[in-house]
């Protein structure tokens, strides 16, 4: 009687994992394609409010972003009142004019009137700040604005 018996036939064969890399690669490509590398590092809290009558922004049109909200936990030295952020820096309403001018300078001339200012404002910000931003935008004649929101029920905004 031999010590090394041959394995019995008939047990379940191991599941082939040969296609696992393919599956993972597929997922990988999906995320690579869907990823948009963030344009700006946010220094503020930026929880957008909800709305349901939204229109998509065409990525081919020029868009500039103005952020506003309470400084995030790392920047408590900036106070707790909502602030404006332009590019990577905290800014005040007065800086918007220069910002719009810089954004316009980077565009082709025929694109300038199409520039949309997207306001990404934290839901807890006060309207006073927004009014200041809007006033400055009106003074620089950047009149196309978009209140960036998430898709959702607008009535769920208040009192959360």
């Amino acid at each position: 009687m031999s010590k090394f018996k041959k394995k019995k036939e008939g047990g379940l064969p191991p599941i082939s994992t040969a296609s696992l890399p393919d599956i993972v690669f597929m997922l990988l490509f999906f995320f690579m394609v869907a990823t948009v590398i963030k344009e700006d590092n946010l220094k503020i809290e930026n929880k957008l409010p909800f709305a349901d009558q939204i229109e998509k922004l065409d990525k081919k049109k020029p868009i500039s972003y103005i952020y506003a909200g309470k400084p995030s936990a790392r920047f408590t030295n900036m106070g707790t009142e909502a602030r404006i952020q332009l590019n990577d820096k905290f800014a005040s309403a007065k800086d918007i004019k220069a910002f719009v001018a810089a954004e316009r300078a980077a565009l082709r001339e025929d694109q300038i009137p199409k520039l949309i200012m997207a306001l990404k404002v934290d839901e807890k910000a006060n309207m006073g700040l927004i009014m200041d931003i809007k006033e400055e935008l009106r003074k620089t004649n950047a009149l196309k604005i978009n209140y960036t929101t998430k898709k959702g029920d607008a009535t769920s905004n208040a009192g959360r």
Partner: protein
Amino acid sequence: MAKRSAPEVNAGSMADIAFLLLIFFLVTTDIATDSGLNRKLPPWEDKPDDTEVKIKQRNIFQITVNKKDQIQIKTRGDDKLTELKDLRAEIVAFLDNGGGQGEDACQYCQGDKHPESSDNFVKAVISLGNDRLTKYETYISVQNEVIAAYNELRNREFLKEYPNLNMNYVQANNMYQDPQTDQDEKDKLKEKLQVIKDRIPQIFSEAETKKS
């Protein structure tokens, strides 16, 4: 002597490498939110206009959001507080009223022709005022309801005008703005959208914020 075949490359760790990359992209992904409420600001005027346009009180729907985020509306000659969920119906009732007589008569309105409410779509103005301490989220909700009310009426008119398109105003507008729609289709849609936009223009005024 038989030629020895080249040893096969071990691909067992391929999955691990791919997983590593996958997890990296999963963590860094931030699916962008690039949608929102489009609005247009009025141009800035250095000197306040002396030639004020007189608008009849009945053609103005005044919404004021105070610093406690309460919504106050002034329509049909009375002032009242309202809830956000009732706001849309109030705006639709105001816009759709059609109380105009003679040349101001509204051809498309289906409202109850209240004498203290708007004459027609073109005359009706929505005015939104807010305090400096109003929360942004409340303001957005109100803006959303104003746009929703207009969209509701525009949908109705669009369906009535172009019943065989099988879509409403909002769907048509989305299709128009979709970069994948071809140019021919876009030109056709633009014309139709413009008809409805002219019929029900969004006349929206934002009063300067009250100083608190």
